């Protein structure tokens, strides 16, 4: 939801209120133009002010790019400030905050992927922090969340997709392609296309899930805000803002959790021992494999 859209909508409301059009319009389009009760589609999908400003440069996707750059730069500056002068005996509050974030992310990754997840804390943690900040950005007026555009989510999902196969090939070599054929050899001509489609469906579902959630939530906030602006009770969208915070966290969690399940499904299975002596440490990755077998 953008500030430009809000201004646009208030203007259209004003003009619709001034001209008291009688109900002579028979066609649906004319009724939609004169009736103030209908929210025009062009309002929700209207241009952000950045896009209109940089229109001569030809940047249709400038909004997403600029918002992503804002997220990246502010994250980098924040982390740079927080981590300067580390390893002191008395850590600063910022450093404590960053360490808290890192430790909780580490626990989250190790809980799902097991001890092999030590290599993936950086990847998954960066994905989590970036997606979370991008999702949260949409509830600030004037800013748009980059993840409410399909381009950004496809880019993030492609990172996951490529890393699945990269780590699969890196750890298993060419044996990695054997699991495409399935267990029974004479079913291989059937199983290979199914597995390929399943692999291709992963980034699709990841990206569309994130996009649809964030976009739908932004549109819901937008519509409720316009409802409040129309009825002069400007708090209709307030509960939706809290729900948006919750959804942002959940979606970032789900995205990274599915990424971890996919990546640990591509890693070799023999690595995890099946000893009975340590149930908590060794059963978790096996369970993630088992659950991954049904996710396609």
């Amino acid at each position, binding site marked *: 939801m953008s500030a430009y859209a809000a201004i646009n909508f208030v203007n259209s409301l004003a003009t619709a209120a001034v001209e008291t059009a009688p109900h002579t319009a028979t066609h649906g389009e004319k009724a*939609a133009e004169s009736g103030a009760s209908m929210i025009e589609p062009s309002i929700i999908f209207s241009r952000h002010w950045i896009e209109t400003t940089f229109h001569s440069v030809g940047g249709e996707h400038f909004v997403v790019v600029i918002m992503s750059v804002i997220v990246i730069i502010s994250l980098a500056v924040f982390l740079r400030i927080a981590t300067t002068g580390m390893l002191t005996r008395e850590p600063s509050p910022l450093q404590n905050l960053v360490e808290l974030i890192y430790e909780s992310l580490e626990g989250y990754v190790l809980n799902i992927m097991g001890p092999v997840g030590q290599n993936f804390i950086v990847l998954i943690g960066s994905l989590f922090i970036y997606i979370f900040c991008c999702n949260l950005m949409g509830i600030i007026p004037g800013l748009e969340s980059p993840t409410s555009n399909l381009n950004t989510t496809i880019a993030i999902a492609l990172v996951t997709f490529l890393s699945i196969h990269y780590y699969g090939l890196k750890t298993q070599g060419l044996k990695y392609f054997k699991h495409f054929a399935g267990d029974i050899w004479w079913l291989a001509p059937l199983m290979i296309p199914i597995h390929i489609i399943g692999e291709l469906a992963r980034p699709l579902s990841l990206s569309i899930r994130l996009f*649809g959630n964030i976009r739908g939530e932004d549109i819901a906030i937008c519509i409720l805000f316009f409802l409040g602006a129309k009825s002069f009770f400007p708090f209709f969208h307030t509960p939706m803002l809290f729900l948006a915070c919750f959804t942002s966290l959940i979606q970032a969690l*789900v995205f990274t959790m599915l990424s971890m399940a996919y990546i640990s499904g591509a890693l070799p299975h023999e690595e995890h021992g099946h000893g009975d002596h340590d149930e908590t440490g060794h059963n978790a990755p096996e369970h993630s494999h088992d659950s991954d077998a049904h996710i396609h």
Partner: protein
Amino acid sequence: MKGVISMALDFNVWCVIFSSLCIAIGAFSAAIAQGKSIVAALEGIARQPQSAGEIRTTMIIGLALIESLAIYCLVISLILLFVRWKA
């Protein structure tokens, strides 16, 4: 002015009707499925509280996968609503 109920409804009206039907059916079935999975997970946790973490993780993944179907319905209904079809 023609009657409201006629076979020759405007194409945009059909779009609105079916987009709302789409999201209604999608949300309905996704809610039933999510309720079933949450019931099963809660029963599992109540029987074995020590395995609550794994059950919760698997449940959240499953809920996300179910919810993505509802989100596809949302995307399709948004497309039906907001894309200007030439018809």
